[in-house]
């Protein structure tokens, strides 16, 4: 396994890797340690705990990501109008400053916790964990986590959510998936928002946006939606109901799931061969990669 490693030190073999033990040192007297551990393992560990907490309370958690102004909060407002009577919803809002977005959600009679990140450009699992303790999870079906408006950093951080939703608004241009592949690859659902603007922005072609998404080898549904008008949200509402149903079916079987991108980051750890957790982290979680 790891002859130069030392990461699997036990009382039985400790003498080999201590002092001048055979396995310990390189020719020039340095100790080489093979680690193969994800750089975000602390975050991922916290995220796994968040996911357990959500699963225990039978909550479906969705991470909404987009550039600033793509319409995340408007989408949530319209979703609450549409589903707020059937389903119990809560929202975590991430922004650099202000309580504005949380206030918009609270005005709908919905629990909302604002995380002001200061200068941090993304939410991480620790911030979300704190926010989870400020929400009464017992009475919740769906938790929306509205990430900081940013198409770069949020994609790298698992928060403990079950699914990632990426928004791409019509005024942004249809080549966003090609420009920000890391973000759009991570999405389990891509919503093309503000579709009511398509008539005045004919240069935006939803087909082309979807094509760029498929170039990322993504099979995620791509839906064109609008919060204006009556039926503009139908595909999104149906997807939410389906996801909630799937989440409950999984929980009945004692399983959970994580979004696209996190599966990938875990796979890349596994690719490196046997991995060894250092220190005090020896928790095991069973996750379903469906």
């Amino acid at each position: 396994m790891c002859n130069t490693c030392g990461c699997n030190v036990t009382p039985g073999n400790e003498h080999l890797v201590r002092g001048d033990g055979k396995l310990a040192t390189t020719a020039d007297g340095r100790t080489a340690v093979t680690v193969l551990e994800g750089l975000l393992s602390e975050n991922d560990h916290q995220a796994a705990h968040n996911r357990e907490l959500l699963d225990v309370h039978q909550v479906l958690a969705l991470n909404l990501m987009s550039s600033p102004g793509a319409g995340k909060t408007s989408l949530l407002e319209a979703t609450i109008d549409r589903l707020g009577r059937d389903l119990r919803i809560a929202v975590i809002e991430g922004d650099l400053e202000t309580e504005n977005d949380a206030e918009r959600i609270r005005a709908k009679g919905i629990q909302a916790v604002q995380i002001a990140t200061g200068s941090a450009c993304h939410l991480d699992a620790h911030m979300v964990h704190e926010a989870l303790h400020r929400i009464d999870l017992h009475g919740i079906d769906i938790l929306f986590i509205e990430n900081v408006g940013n198409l770069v950093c949020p994609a790298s951080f698992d928060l403990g959510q079950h699914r990632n939703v990426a928004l791409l608004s019509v005024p942004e241009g249809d080549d966003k998936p090609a420009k920000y592949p890391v973000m759009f690859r991570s999405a389990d659902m891509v919503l093309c928002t503000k579709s009511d603007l398509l008539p005045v922005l004919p240069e935006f072609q939803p087909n082309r946006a979807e094509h760029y998404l498929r170039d990322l080898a993504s099979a995620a549904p791509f839906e064109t939606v609008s919060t204006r008008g009556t039926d503009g949200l139908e595909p999104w509402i149906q997807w939410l109901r389906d996801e909630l149903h799937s989440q409950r079916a999984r929980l009945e079987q004692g399983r959970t799931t994580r979004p696209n991108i996190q599966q990938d980051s875990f796979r890349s750890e596994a690719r490196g061969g046997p991995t060894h957790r250092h220190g005090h982290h020896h928790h095991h979680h069973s996750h379903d990669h469906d």
Partner: protein
Amino acid sequence: MHELSLCQALIDQVTRIATDHGASRVDRILLKVGPLSGVEPSLLQHAYPLAATGTIAESAELVIEPAEIRVHCHTCGADTQATANRLLCGACGSFHTRLTSGDEMLLANLELIVPDQEDADR
């Protein structure tokens, strides 16, 4: 710009491992970072000294090994090279591919200075 917070996580991780091994100093840190990890190696290099100052890894050399983007095709079975925004099979063009390399963000290897323990053991 999440490279600084990544560096801080890296330093925490490195410090933990170095302490476990009784190291007095970290000499070299090897990372493996793929283009689809969302991390920019040059920004990581710039942020590193800020995060490392005053830690056991202060004087460590940070080496970032790039990873190439490769996909495995579920349609034709080929393993081919790809680019960040075009992850299709290089052989048949199918989008039913699985990334096999390119999204890594791994702490791969550390070189530590461990003081001779013999005196302490006696």
